[in-house]
């Protein structure tokens, strides 16, 4: 299966919605730059839908930023079996 790197398209792009130092890109510009660098062709309809989906996804994913890492230790996962008792 094709696997496009999530981050490869971000290299060389400094994206932020806040004014500050360095180049500042709005979402649309950042997304276009990312896809261009990855060689992916998109159109305006794509961008509008991506904006909606991305915003919704990030809203949900940001819950993960707030987990207590001590309560959620990094553990090996074998999906075929029940987890081994700690």
């Amino acid at each position: 299966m094709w696997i496009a790197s999530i981050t490869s398209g971000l290299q060389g792009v400094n994206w932020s919605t806040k004014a500050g130092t360095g180049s500042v890109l709005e979402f649309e510009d950042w997304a276009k730059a990312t896809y261009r660098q990855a060689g992916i062709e998109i159109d305006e309809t794509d961008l509008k839908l991506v904006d909606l989906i991305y915003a919704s996804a990030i809203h949900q994913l940001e819950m993960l930023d707030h987990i207590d890492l001590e309560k959620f230790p990094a553990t090996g996962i074998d999906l075929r079996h029940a987890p081994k008792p700690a």
Partner: protein
Amino acid sequence: MSHPQDWTLRQQAEAIRRGDLNARELLQLTLERIAERDGSINSTPVTFEEASLNMLGQAPAGPLHGVPFTVKDMFALPWRAARNGTSFDLIPASASGPFRNLRDAGAVVVGIANQHELGMGTTGAYSAYGRMGNPWKPDHCAGGSSGGSAAAVAARLVAASLASDSGGSTRLPASYCGVVGLKITYGAVPYDGYFGAATTFSAPGIVARDGGDVRLFATSLLQRPLPKQSGSGIRVGVVRDPFWHDINPEIAAAGENALRVSGWHVTEINIEHMELAGAAFLGRLIAEAGVPPNDILATLSAPTRALLLAGMLAPARFVPRADRVRAAIRESLARAFQSVDLLVWPTTPATAPSLDHPWVMLPSGHVAADTANVRHASLANLTGVPGISLPIGLDSAGLPIGLQLLAPWGGEARLLDATEYFERVTDRRFVDLIPPMAR
């Protein structure tokens, strides 16, 4: 004499074994029925009579000898590449692992089951073969991504279909179409030649008409016995929030009625960290989905393209955190299974929406069916456990309602015991409901 596709899989296999039904005749009758009946539901867009006849000619004398079934487009066959609901050969033609197990049991592939493109949806509204209709109401969704599998079984085109389940893709369409859908434990069969090998969420699934047929098919797919025990006295854990709260009231009522008539020992139970399950599922899934090459991307529907493209932008920092939560939820689930045998909640929070507008109304508001469905289905994929959907009635619009059960890892037999028990105590009045087009 009735058409043999109105029989169960067990009856077909037994009739062939006894010499009362000729397997070649069954294959011809099945092809004819697909040609006659599939037009409005588009469940089985590809058949290959010559390849099926060749397979039948070489079929060993196994438990499924001579019975036809369809295969979701995610599995490679020796004579056909897996296309995953696109118009591209994505996995070269080969004998995929699940195919080999069923071939060795004597079963015969009669056609390709339509599916939501790339498995990226739960409605069946988008596919290179055209969208799939629900046999109960052809202008409503058959579900997805294994919509063709569920629709074909409900319409009595075949008695069983090999499906897959990465986020409910077997259980959800089974619920929409009023049939039984089993997701097996992650990694329980060889994954070569199967699109599920590319994710940590996917497992093959089985769609059939009732628990007994799923047991027969699953025994061959899993290549291990699934001994039958009484499904009475089972302890089921009800996870109220969110699975019984934010759902259509008719579904809630049907689910409560199912629990009451089952006589199972019902316990209210909480799964620790469930509030993070959706984020963990999403965080990992978007990292695994990837984006196809431009020539493929250009052929996909706008929603599928956007899903894939949006996933590509997601920051990688969420992936290891999603894995930490995933591990914790697996441990919570294992603890829950120390006090109950199965977990239970409605398979979908609403019945099949229309194909033209696949959104559903819930107490929380009007939401895309995909969003609501994945919330109900993804725990099994996040943790690896098996799950099943069984029919428990119709809503006031005449669309099927399903109940979902989850079991511990490797607990397929327990799910089937519960399903068959439920069918018995309800005098099969739900599982034997037949859609109008198949009467």
